[in-house]
């Protein structure tokens, strides 16, 4: 079949079935936007994991004058205790990569910097913040090694694993991602049914054309091709809208708003976004071909 004739048939078919075509485009756009968002979220989580796990530390807080922990019964940490803890930590190499001591004054300075402009700062004094050792591990999973070595040691008020805090956060993100993917799959299913229905209606509306095509000896492929191409065209438009939406989210939401205000998070890059876009088209076109092909097998039998 000549391409110009085919293009004319496809255009005419889409126009005649206008409302269904619009429904199909919107449905494909919504489901693929969700699908793309779920993929983007996964890249985002990966980025954040890479960025934060790299910075994750174990904080060993030392006893202050007012600490209530059992190990602090003798009051604020003494110089000897502090030295003992440092030696213990340094003895844990290579699991422990580096040990950094943060005094109460330094903790206060950092606190002031982090909460600049907040009324909190006025109410907190340097003595309220504990001094601590910041311990960097070779692998954030090896927290237990530090915990076992320091548990119950005099002068240690508490040991905090930042990774645990992050993991709870990542679990929430992972849940959101699964949720988005589930909705995307449900929407794709809806899209499949919509494609099937649209193609069925189109095939019924044009049963005269197809019966003439059959009677003059058009091949099965060329009878079905216009219908499949109509579904594919609508899907490509829908995938294009979805791609545009993701690009807009990256440009106007992530880059323009989130990134400047939430600088301590590593955001998805354009590279991440561009890797995802082709998949929208692959899934969209694949769905259209499979759904319309199956329908036509049933409704346009030679």
């Amino acid at each position: 079949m000549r391409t110009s004739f085919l293009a004319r048939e496809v255009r005419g078919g889409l126009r005649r079935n206008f409302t269904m075509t619009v429904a199909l485009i919107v449905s494909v756009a919504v489901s693929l936007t969700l699908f793309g968002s779920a993929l983007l979220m996964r890249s985002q989580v990966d980025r954040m994991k890479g960025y934060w796990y790299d910075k994750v530390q174990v904080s060993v807080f030392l006893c202050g004058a007012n600490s209530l922990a059992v190990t602090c019964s003798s009051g604020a940490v003494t110089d000897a205790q502090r030295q003992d803890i440092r030696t213990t930590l340094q003895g844990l190499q290579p699991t422990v990569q580096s040990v950094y001591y943060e005094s109460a004054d330094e903790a206060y300075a950092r606190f002031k910097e982090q909460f600049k402009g907040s009324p909190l700062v006025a109410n907190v004094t340097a003595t309220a913040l504990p001094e601590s050792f910041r311990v960097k591990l070779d692998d954030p999973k090896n927290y237990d090694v530090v915990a076992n070595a320091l548990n119950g040691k005099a002068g240690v008020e508490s040991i905090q694993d930042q990774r645990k805090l992050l993991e709870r956060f990542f679990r929430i993100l992972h849940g959101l991602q699964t949720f988005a993917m589930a909705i995307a799959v449900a929407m794709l299913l809806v899209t499949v049914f919509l494609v099937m229905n649209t193609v069925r209606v189109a095939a019924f509306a044009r049963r005269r054309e197809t019966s003439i095509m059959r009677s003059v000896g058009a091949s099965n492929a060329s009878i079905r091709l216009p219908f499949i191409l109509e579904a594919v065209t609508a899907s490509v438009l829908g995938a294009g809208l979805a791609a545009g939406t993701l690009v807009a989210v990256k440009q106007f939401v992530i880059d323009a708003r989130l990134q400047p205000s939430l600088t301590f998070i590593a955001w998805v890059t354009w590279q991440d976004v561009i890797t995802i876009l082709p998949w929208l088209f692959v899934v969209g076109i694949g769905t259209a071909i499979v759904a319309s092909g199956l329908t036509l097998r049933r409704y346009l039998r030679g």
Partner: protein
Amino acid sequence: MISFDNVSKQYKNSNRPALTDINLDVEQGEFVFLVGSSGSGKSSLLRLLLKEETPTTGLVTIDGINIGKLANRKVPKLRRTMGIVFQDFRLLPSKSVFDNVAFGMEVIGKNRKEIRQRVPEVIELVGLEGKEDRLPSELSGGEQQRVALARAFINQPKILLADEPTGNLDPSTSVGIMKLLDRINRTGTTILMATHDVAIVDQMRKRIVQLDHGTIVRDQARGMYGHAGH
């Protein structure tokens, strides 16, 4: 070129066979009327030739090819050697006369040059020159059937099947269509025409095959409708 050997056709949901033990041979270039009342099996016979149905028993061959055993993917090629017209014309209402005729070439992949050359020739053959841009709704019944004939003939089929082509037309218009069919027949095209039209059959004096309840009750060269020898 067309031959039916002991062909019977039994539809699934029917208790009576549509065709019983049909034996029929049609030579290249013949003009054959298939007559008989509704339900006598005329349409079933045409459907077997188009491979819209397969025979329950027996052998249908065209040019020595067993149609009943033809693989599905070869059916389009078979149909390209045949043209068909119906009582209700079956034109595409949104396409012009030219596009309706060209449709038969477009869908089997003929190129633009062939189409531009062939379509006007056939439109002239059926006597519709000057009406290429009209829509079917702007034509009379006779003119619409001429468009359908042009489309059926566009790919120069060896066989033309006509299922009650004058069924919706008045007698004088029917005569024009029959003249056209006769002209097409003279180009060497074999024509099988199912009809009820007594006047036409009597006038044309062609071979008549009469069906009754799925069997051939008369096969007569240069026959008349009402004067059956049974």
